[in-house]
């Protein structure tokens, strides 16, 4: 092999597991909960799968399936065009995003204790500054991932967490979103819940601030992540390649993290 010393080092580190690969993806199955909106609005399809053949008369040598879902089913990425605030930005759909951005560092803020006490917990600017005082400044172009351990709610009802007043799930407060966009120039915001915004985010100003302000600034979202508890606060590299859907507003995807093994 003649080229590439750094990539050779990467390949070797992967082989010897001095760099580990962690799967941040929930399994895509008919059981995975899908976002549900008021009935007058258009609805995202849950994941459905239909066998084409399974080594049988429909295809003796093959097993394969057709499937259907939405661009925002399961662990998925939100592109800027998903929100009206990002509709006129360049490269705002999954087929036109700069692929260089699809590998980016991540900072993980652990809000699991707070979210356990309060399902409506809002990440604040104070939380971010406290994180930075321990772990250093969030670099421009990094993902900010909000760890809540929400992914451990294997029961769909507890995961969605609806009551008569709506959905109760944690997310970022408006000031925190504004700070991440304007003061830190992050790549995007990632969450373990089914929305990057809190379940009660409709009542914030502006409504759904993470969608509205992040996508308005050309930034991305990641939802339904898992295994954030396996990541270090800083130093992980996150791989987030959406399907290349023509003019797609988002996509289910496999999210992987690379982390250096502690020596």
């Amino acid at each position, binding site marked *: 092999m003649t080229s590439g010393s750094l990539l050779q*080092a990467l390949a070797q580190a992967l082989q010897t597991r001095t760099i580990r690969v962690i799967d941040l993806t929930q399994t895509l199955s008919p059981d995975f909960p899908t976002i549900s909106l008021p009935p007058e609005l258009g609805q*995202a399809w849950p994941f459905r799968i239909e066998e084409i053949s399974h*080594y049988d008369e429909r295809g003796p040598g093959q097993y394969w399936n057709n499937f*259907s879902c939405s661009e925002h089913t399961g662990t998925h990425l939100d592109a800027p065009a998903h929100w009206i605030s990002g509709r006129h930005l360049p490269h705002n759909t999954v087929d036109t995003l700069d692929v260089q951005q699809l590998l980016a560092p991540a900072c993980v803020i652990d809000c699991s204790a707070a979210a356990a006490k309060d399902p409506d917990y809002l990440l604040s600017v104070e939380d971010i500054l406290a994180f930075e005082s321990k772990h250093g400044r969030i670099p421009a172009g990094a993902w900010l991932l909000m760890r809540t351990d929400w992914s451990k709610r294997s029961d769909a009802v507890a995961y969605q967490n609806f009551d008569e007043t709506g959905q109760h799930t944690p997310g970022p407060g408006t000031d925190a979103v504004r700070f991440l966009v304007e003061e830190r120039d992050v790549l995007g915001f990632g969450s373990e819940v089914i929305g990057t915004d809190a379940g009660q985010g409709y009542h914030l100003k502006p409504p759904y601030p993470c969608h509205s302000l992040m996508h308005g600034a050309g930034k991305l979202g990641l939802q339904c992540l898992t295994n954030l508890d396996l990541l270090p606060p800083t130093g992980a590299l996150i791989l987030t390649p959406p399907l290349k859907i023509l003019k797609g507003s988002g996509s289910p995807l496999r999210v992987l993290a*690379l982390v250096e093994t502690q020596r």
Partner: protein
Amino acid sequence: MNTLHELTESIRSRTIRVIDLTQTLSEDFPSLQLPPEFGQVQGFKRDRISKYDEAGPDWYWNNFSCGEHTGTHFDAPAHWITGREHPANTVDTIAVENFLTPAVVVDASAQVAGDSDWLLTRAFLEDWEARHGRIPARAWVLFRTDWSKRVNDAARFLNTREDGAHTPGPTQEAIEWLIRERDVHGFGVETINTDAGQSFRWPLAYPCHTLMHGAGKYGLQCLTNLDLLPATGAVIFSAPLKILEGSGSPLRVLALTELA
């Protein structure tokens, strides 16, 4: 500086370039067609949910349907009957380390331009090795044919006549050699089939599917931009969707390459 930190900085500064090996997934992308007595894989279809309108005033999104083997896609061992007994043989159970792997690129574009049924032989691979070095164990072998450049003409891309598809692929002997002598990670192609279009007539039909998946190895199909990759030294990121018991998946395939 550790390797991961250096990698992160090099991606940011673009001394490592990320190259997209994925075809755009749209209604126009050609789908594999089987004889009518068999189950059929669906082409990509889309159904708009809302676009900043009364169905969703502030948001745009779509529902979609397709096959696990539509567009640029990954084949897991369970796709073929020979791989059915392997452990971790579906896209949700394959160890994720397998999704980030070095690749070599074997350029047969000149040969294929003159013969759409051109077959990749062991001799051609040995000649490639004489020029570029031995194919390392656990590397993808990507077969560059420039077939991807036909994508805007579905008839030329599928290249089907009354006697079947006429597309290039590897010989049985080449596949046996890649598995037994080189222990490759899998085989990737620009066409819709890791096997040659006419391979259904061979004594061992579809040898790449049959033998690669039988050996627990993987396939990548409908790749593009292989002409932008070096013969050796690229690292390929090819992580399928985590479909429960999925036989394969459409995916985004990216290559990392280092500026010389």
